[in-house]
């Protein structure tokens, strides 16, 4: 009888241990998935903040060039960004990230005095803030397990949080710089070097990213993404050609600033489309 009890107790103990093990595994898997879902929402808000900061950079640059009409838009955008920051702080543990504190500090100082800054300085300050936010977004993606280690169905997920957004940022920088050049119809040697560097970076990173997106398609990848990548390749190729021919190599700049701004915005838009499509696919994957 004792023998039987011993075996029964052993079996019960083993069962409990096994159940505990399964419980731990399931719990951790659920926790990771939950974090991933929260992380996606978190990232989308940070992306909104990045887009708003990029817009703020463009309008601040226009204001520094003497366009007073954007002052209303700038103030409205500041309110919008304040609202986004507030949402981030209330709904997500953004304050746990060092880069958020750094952003708050830098943005607080910049937004208070952005109208008094010179064109070069305002562009530089905004670019630093955008760069910090891009790193924050990447940190959040890793903290919330939105990496290829935890999303094996999405081998290109890392490209979304870094390369794709960096291409958009480089296009944004060349939009700010190129619009000023097209308005003044003069490109200094330093501006040529900056534009040449941006042109080189856009071409390098965009080609590398698009090739990887085409070669390593995710399981959930649809025809739409391939189509969007192909469209983006063409559009960014044309945009790079315009930068090279009309701004860097041109003896006399005749490019219309509004036309250039519109082309750059379209190029950013196709990148954002790919980003949104990929993010939606990840969301769909979570909801299954």
């Amino acid at each position: 009888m004792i023998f039987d009890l011993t075996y029964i107790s052993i079996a019960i103990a083993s069962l409990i241990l096994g159940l505990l093990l399964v419980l731990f595994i399931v719990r951790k898997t659920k926790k990771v998935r939950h974090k991933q879902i929260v992380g996606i929402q978190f990232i989308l808000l940070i992306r909104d903040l990045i887009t708003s900061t990029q817009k703020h950079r463009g309008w601040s640059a226009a204001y520094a060039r003497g366009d007073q009409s954007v002052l209303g838009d700038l103030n409205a955008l500041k309110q919008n960004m304040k609202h986004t920051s507030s949402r981030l702080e209330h709904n997500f543990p953004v304050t746990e990230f060092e880069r958020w504190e750094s952003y708050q500090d830098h943005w607080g100082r910049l937004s208070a005095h952005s109208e008094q800054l010179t064109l070069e300085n305002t562009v530089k300050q905004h670019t630093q803030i955008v760069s910090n936010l891009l790193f924050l977004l990447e940190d959040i993606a890793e903290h919330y397990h939105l990496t290829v280690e935890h999303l094996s169905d999405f081998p290109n997920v890392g490209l979304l949080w870094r390369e794709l957004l960096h291409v958009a940022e480089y296009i944004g920088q060349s939009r700010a710089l190129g619009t000023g050049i097209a308005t003044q119809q003069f490109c200094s040697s330093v501006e040529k070097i900056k534009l040449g560097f941006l042109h080189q970076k856009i071409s390098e990173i965009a080609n590398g990213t698009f090739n990887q997106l085409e070669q390593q398609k995710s399981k959930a990848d649809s025809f739409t993404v391939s189509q969007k990548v192909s469209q983006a390749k063409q559009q960014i190729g044309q945009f790079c050609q315009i930068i090279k021919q009309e701004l860097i190599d041109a003896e006399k700049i005749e490019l219309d600033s509004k036309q250039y701004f519109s082309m750059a915005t379209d190029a950013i838009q196709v990148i954002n489309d790919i980003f949104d499509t990929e993010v939606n696919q990840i969301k769909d994957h979570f909801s299954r």
Partner: protein
Amino acid sequence: MVYLLRKAGMKQTFSLVWILILVTLAVLPWLPVWLGYAFSVAALVILALLFIAIIKELTELDEKLKQGEQVEYDYRKLELSALSLGKPVKQLIDLLRELSRQNNGLKARMSEVEHASLQVIESAQQVSYNVQAQSDSTNSTAAAILEMSQSLQQVAEKIKATFELSSLTQQDSEQGKVHLIQLKKEIEAVKQDADITQVQMSELDGLAESVAQMSKTIQDISAQTNLLALNASIEAARAGDLGRGFAVVADEVRALADRSSQAANQITNNVQQVLEKSHLVNESMKLVAERSGGCLDTAEQTENALNCMHSRAQEVQAEMQIISANTEQQNMANQEISEHVERVVQGARANAEVAEQAQAIANHLKTLTQNGG
């Protein structure tokens, strides 16, 4: 065990193992000895497996870190968060992430420096080309100025020769003037002589007329003598033989009277001719006097012209002196320009060298950034 570690997490796996050990220790007094040993061995085996799993994870971590260079220090490609090694690895990932970002930032800066250095190379090449072109142009300019300077030297020499010729012309005109004055004096002397000759010819005419008068008187005397000799012959005829001798004398006297008359006629004729010739000479002398006057006028006009020539030659000489001085100044200015151009050429050469050095530096910079990248 590695799977369990990764799926459940290190903390949870260790918790489970500790629970297993505690449960084993708690129920050990009621268990048979052999079973107690069996549980202890199982617990030890599980612990050993756990440590082996941890060592495996550490070995994998070591291998992945060694792959760092192959994946260009992109920590994402190492997939370190898949390893279940708890906080230390998380901190390591954080550190790697920051290092990777710094590396990317540095790479981007290097890339920008490389791009800028390429632009510097292009600019330096352009400067070098421009400076070379400038140097060539300046060399050509210097050669042209040198040629111009030599040409000006020749012009100055020619001006000097012309000036000397002009001086000689002036001297000649002065000498001509002297000769002309002498000629004028001589013409005046000729005129005076002609006037004197005219006066003397008039006197000669008077004398010739008096000779003609005397010849007429002789003719009258001869006619009267002839008449007397005729009367004597008549008287001698009357006297007959006595008068014969007288008649011969009378004939002789008559013959003398005839010869005197003829001689007087001849003298008259000759005087007439002398008068005619004298008249002609007189006319000629008048013409000589008039022509001498004309010659004097012409000589005066020639003198005026020579005076004019002399003053013009002096003016030309003065102008030549000014031109000579200007040419000299121009020559000096040309030499100065030539020296400046030479300095510009030297500057252009120095600039070309500087541009080449800048190009070399930029190339070096590019090489450095490429090595660094």
